[in-house]
């Protein structure tokens, strides 16, 4: 059902937790669908220098959260904004069709965190 990469990111998720004094945070999901993703970011000079996630959800949700943090870390906000859920799924070697809609929202959570950051720091390009 799940690819090796999904299983790896699910069993050994990267960047789990929250950041003390995070610069911004984003959250997406609802308990009905069974997935809630929360992302904290720390930004320096327009670059995501730290990122952590907390996710309530299935393996696809956890793995895509983990994957998005891994991809985004070290990226500029502008680069990170270009990340899509599909790109995360692709980086995981694909997700089962049933999981694409509901559990594959980690990029959206990241975008919300970036939005939050931009709201707080309107001066940053």
């Amino acid at each position, binding site marked *: 059902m799940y690819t090796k990469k999904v299983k790896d990111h699910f*069993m050994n998720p990267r960047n789990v937790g929250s950041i003390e004094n995070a610069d911004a945070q984003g959250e997406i999901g609802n308990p009905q669908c069974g997935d809630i993703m929360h992302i904290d970011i720390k930004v320096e000079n327009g670059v995501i220098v730290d990122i952590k996630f907390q996710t309530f959800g299935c393996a696809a949700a956890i793995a895509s959260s983990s994957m998005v943090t891994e991809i985004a870390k070290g990226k500029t906000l502008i680069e990170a904004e270009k990340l899509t859920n599909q790109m995360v799924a692709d980086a995981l070697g694909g997700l089962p069709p049933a999981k694409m809609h509901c559990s594959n929202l980690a990029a959206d959570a990241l975008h919300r965190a970036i939005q939050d950051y931009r709201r707080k720091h309107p001066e940053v390009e």
Partner: protein
Amino acid sequence: MKCIYLDHSATTPVDPEVVTAMNPFFSMHYGNPSSMYSIAEISRDAIEQSRSTIASFINASPKEIYFTSGGTESDNQAIFTTAQKQKHKGMHIITSSIEHHAVLYAFQQLEKEGFDVTYLPVDSYGIVSPSSLQKAMRSDTTLVSIMHANNEVGTMQDILSLATIAHEKGALFHTDAVQAIGKVPVDVQLMNVDLLSSSAHKLYGPKGVGFLYAKKGTPFSSYLYGGGQENKKRPGTENVPGIVGFAKAIELAQNRSLDDHQHLQNLATFLTDGIQNLVSDVLFTGHPTQRTPGHVSVCFKYVEGESILLMLDSHGICVSSGSACTSGSLDASHVLLAMGIDSATAQGSIRLTMGRQNTMEDMKAVLNVLPEIIEKLRKMSPLC
């Protein structure tokens, strides 16, 4: 890695004795039971012998047992054909809100076709109260279908009381006993039911064979159209090895029922106590005592079922989950929601259903890894 299988409500391994019973009917006694020559008599006799074994196990007469392709078909045939055949009497039919989809979706389809359907509520234990059925019954009610034992939470209904209420108003009573047969005594006379569904693979028999019990005189009919098999109630060449295997599985269940029952109870109690002691914020679901033996269903708050399932799987432990993620739909289990459990909690449900082969060591193995899995997932959860 050794596999600890704790999902016997999903399906069971076929008992080796059952395989042995089936084997001669593949390549040796392969005759079509409808054929006239003597070698076909062996197949025919095997089916009738199987019918008798099964009938006596549930206290029915052999003529009241009709073989089908499984629980789903039995449920469908019982519901669709009795509702249609009694249309002149009335168009009101009743079921519960915690039925298996093989019953629930049949009722929803009949609703689309113009039937008036009442979905009875359940209490927080998953019990359908006889008084709610009593209130729902109308003069145009023709069929009541309420499951004997629930697959997700293990709760068992008081079928005799419910069936008696249905009969008082002249309605037929069907019960989906797929999760009950082989685990608890099922006696169609004592339960006073008109129709009852069963599926072999839930009791160490093969997949792809079931039966429908229909009391003599019950107005039901064939759901499929074709040959005259099964006394014209189920066309198609009979699955002879499957039927023989089903009967063997029933025979084994009969012989072992007392031992099995006690063993399964012990395992479940040990597991329940262990989880209770080792993990916080858990909610055991289903009725505490009126439940199938060996069935533990529990919600772990703040985490999601599929994740628990897969982490247990990585330790070689097989369980199932009532979470939205595993059912292919996006909503949490309709059973847990009907019992009044909020959807976030319902997402964290896990079902562990034990079988004959399981041991106390298996339970200890679960208790050994489950707490740290829950802890790991909760650490990851934004809800904690």
